[in-house]
């Protein structure tokens, strides 16, 4: 008996519960039931190209992009500070960035509902100073805010872990050679932290594109994202063919961008050091 044979139970599990379900998505995405039985069709994909659905896709990509940019702008300085000389020994601070991530993400999103609603904490605070109440909930801003809140740690962690590994003697060498802090940042720290930035972007952008819960709770159902559209097809309207086609599009989009990102990451790792 070959020793690798003990993996067979898992292989069976893997085929039934990973591969077959994905093949079923492909099956539903490319077929429809007619009077003659099940036939091959591209109708579901054609339907996706109707303006209303293209808009949904573009909106998802756009909101996720804004979220990623904000996360990068907030997260990069934060990682720099956490990895700086004064703070690098205070590992507790990094843990503090991670902890909210371990809380149920529905609760984290729900927490913002409490803050932003019409009689919520922020509005109460504002009206205390005699200012008029604001509509903070159920708009694009609230959706982006919820995404940033949920995914910011995904940006900070990879960048931080790259920054902390930068060889300090390189920076000292640059200082000895008379480089000012601006040059050091531009010529050493930023290029060396690029792999972290790339994986941070991947880790924020992917879940932001596919979310349907944040847009539902904080957007109040007015801001349909591609995730909401897929959920609708399977939970409410029962149009599996269309839902499967949407899933295939999303899956390809994500695996494709992952492949590009990981390739870029590898290139940098090799070339960036010399």
């Amino acid at each position: 008996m070959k020793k690798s044979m003990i993996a067979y139970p898992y292989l069976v599990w893997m085929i039934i519960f990973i591969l077959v379900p994905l093949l079923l998505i492909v099956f539903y995405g490319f077929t429809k039931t007619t009077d003659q039985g099940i036939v091959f069709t591209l109708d579901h994909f054609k339907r996706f190209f109707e303006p209303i659905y293209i808009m949904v896709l573009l909106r998802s990509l756009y909101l996720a992009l804004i979220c990623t940019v904000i996360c990068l702008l907030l997260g990069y300085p934060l990682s720099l500070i956490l990895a700086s000389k004064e703070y690098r020994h205070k590992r507790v601070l990094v843990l503090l960035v991670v902890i909210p991530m371990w809380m149920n993400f529905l609760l984290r999103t729900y927490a913002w509902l409490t803050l932003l609603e019409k009689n919520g904490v922020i509005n109460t605070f504002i009206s205390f100073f005699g200012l008029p109440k604001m509509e903070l909930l159920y708009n694009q801003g609230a959706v982006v805010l919820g995404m940033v809140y949920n995914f910011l740690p995904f940006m900070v962690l990879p960048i931080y872990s790259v920054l902390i590994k930068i060889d300090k003697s390189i920076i000292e060498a640059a200082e000895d050679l008379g480089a000012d802090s601006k040059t050091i940042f531009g010529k050493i720290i930023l290029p060396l932290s690029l792999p972290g930035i790339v994986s941070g972007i991947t880790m924020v952008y992917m879940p932001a594109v596919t979310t349907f819960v944040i847009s539902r709770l904080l957007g109040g159902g007015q801001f349909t994202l591609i995730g909401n559209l897929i959920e609708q097809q399977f939970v409410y309207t029962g149009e599996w063919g269309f839902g499967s086609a949407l899933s295939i599009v999303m899956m390809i989009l994500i695996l494709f961008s992952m492949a590009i990102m990981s390739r870029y990451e590898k290139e940098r790792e090799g070339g960036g050091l010399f």
Partner: protein
Amino acid sequence: MRFLKRFYLGLIFLFLYAPILILMVFSFNDSKSRGNWGGFTLRWYAELFRDREIMSALYYTIVIAILSALIATAIGMVAALGIHNMNRFGKGLVINITYLPMLNPDIVTGISLMILFVFVNMERGFISLLIAHITFNIPYVIFSIMPKLKQMNQHLYEAALDLGATPFYAFRKVILPEIMPGVITGLIFAFTLSIDDFVISYFTTGAGVSNLSIVIHSMARRGINPTINALSTLMFITVLLLLIIVNKRTANNSGKENVI
């Protein structure tokens, strides 16, 4: 500069923790509206424990988490041993497929399993939920154990066999102690992932069987309810404790696994 750094850190942590803290504070508020403070109360906690829906969800969450973590760890451990002994081609193929549930968006994993269950005419409920959780847990277990197997000295196992140990005895006495840290990390990983999951559960469960995430989702859609605040406070403290345990472990294992 020093002050600026502090100020920035303070702002970020305020952003990260203010919502959670306010949620916790209002779980003790004796008033249904969030606008005013109506005095200290524990009544939302009492209501929480009387709520049938939440209690049954808590029961399912814990049972599913324990069962799926144990089963995923058992399957994953045996799978890791087998994969470790495969030839290059087989290994690459299996590992790449194992990555799929980790790379795929949760919503795709969720609907793909949902389609499968409906396709084979299986009623969605406890069993389908359990299968779904085991499926997304196994990869994390396998990838916790594989590095340990790679680090291990291959000849130890062969030496044990040469000295007359049966394969199972050699596994128990030689391999298992070596990979144990990875097994435990995988187990805890699987447990926390299962407790935290919403998206995949949402698509794979049926009427009558809900976990906490699903109940929170439906309650949050209905509007704000202080009982959820009480529930969040308890869950946050539980997760915090679990995290401390996991972190102690990974720190002891020279911090190999990253805590994500």
